[in-house]
């Protein structure tokens, strides 16, 4: 009897595998790729200015003792429009927001900011995603919290919504 049960085991295993694969096919994997750079120092980069009057950003700018948000965005990114009002609110609360514009052009960016508002104190250009790749950022928008020593302490993937404000303020070391 026991032997017979063991004989059914391989078939049961194969069926389990088949069901697992079938389910995997029915619900495609939408994997959120989190950056491995959280907890590590910001990689060295220098992103040149893209708009007149808005300075670019370099890693050294983050070591001035003031925590800030590093927002990876693009004027061609629709969800990025949705988070501008929230970034504006954070700015109004005294948070310094700097932007890395990925694959962007000056006219498009100018239009984007004129239409939606400009929460950024600095905007660096990243035309070939070099900075984005070195940050371990897999898409736009993404927002990194960088502490005053230039260490990445938190990554927010996707649109920053109203309800994310308390968490971000906490990660920035500000009491909401």
């Amino acid at each position, binding site marked *: 009897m026991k032997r017979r049960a063991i004989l059914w085991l391989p078939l049961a295993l194969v069926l389990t595998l088949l069901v697992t694969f079938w389910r995997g096919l029915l619900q495609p994997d*939408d994997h959120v*790729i989190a950056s491995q750079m959280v907890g590590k120092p910001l990689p060295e980069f220098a992103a040149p200015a893209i708009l007149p009057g808005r300075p670019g950003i370099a890693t050294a700018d983050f070591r001035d003792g003031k925590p800030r948000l590093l927002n990876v965005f693009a004027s061609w990114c629709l969800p990025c429009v949705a988070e501008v009002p929230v970034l504006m609110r954070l700015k109004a609360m005294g948070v310094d927001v700097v932007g890395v514009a990925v694959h962007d052009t000056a006219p498009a960016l100018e239009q984007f900011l004129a239409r939606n508002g400009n929460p950024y104190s600095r905007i660096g250009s990243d035309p070939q*995603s070099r900075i984005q790749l070195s940050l371990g950022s897999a*898409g736009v928008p993404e927002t990194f919290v960088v502490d005053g020593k230039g260490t990445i302490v938190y990554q927010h993937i996707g649109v920053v919504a109203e309800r994310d404000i308390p968490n971000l303020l906490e990660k920035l070391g500000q009491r909401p």
Partner: protein
Amino acid sequence: MRIAFAILAALALSAQAPPLDYAQVSLSDPVKEKQAVELMDTMRCVVCQGQPISGSDAEMAGDMRRIIRERIAAGDRPDDVRAWLVSRYGDFVSFKPEVKPATLPLWLVPLAALLGGLWLVLSRLKFRRRQ
């Protein structure tokens, strides 16, 4: 005079030739290009997740190919470039699983299944012979 002309011609040529974009253009060294392509075949595109970056038209896949070719052209070993990307995006970005404690089941389960199957077949044969 001739030298000045040569310099001018060289300048004109270099100004005309667009810079090579390694997102789309192969490396001139075939050995290095082969290394780069092998690496690109086993790195996952982070936006179009089921695809390797060698077969993706996404802009970001091109940006990853550019970095890979540039680094290999500069003399980096493919494994170092892979490690650089993994240090950014984690193991998920590589299609080539490493042997380490977390991935041990991946390597051991097939072996265990084979041994288990072998044992099952052998014991079954013995059982039959006895009958």
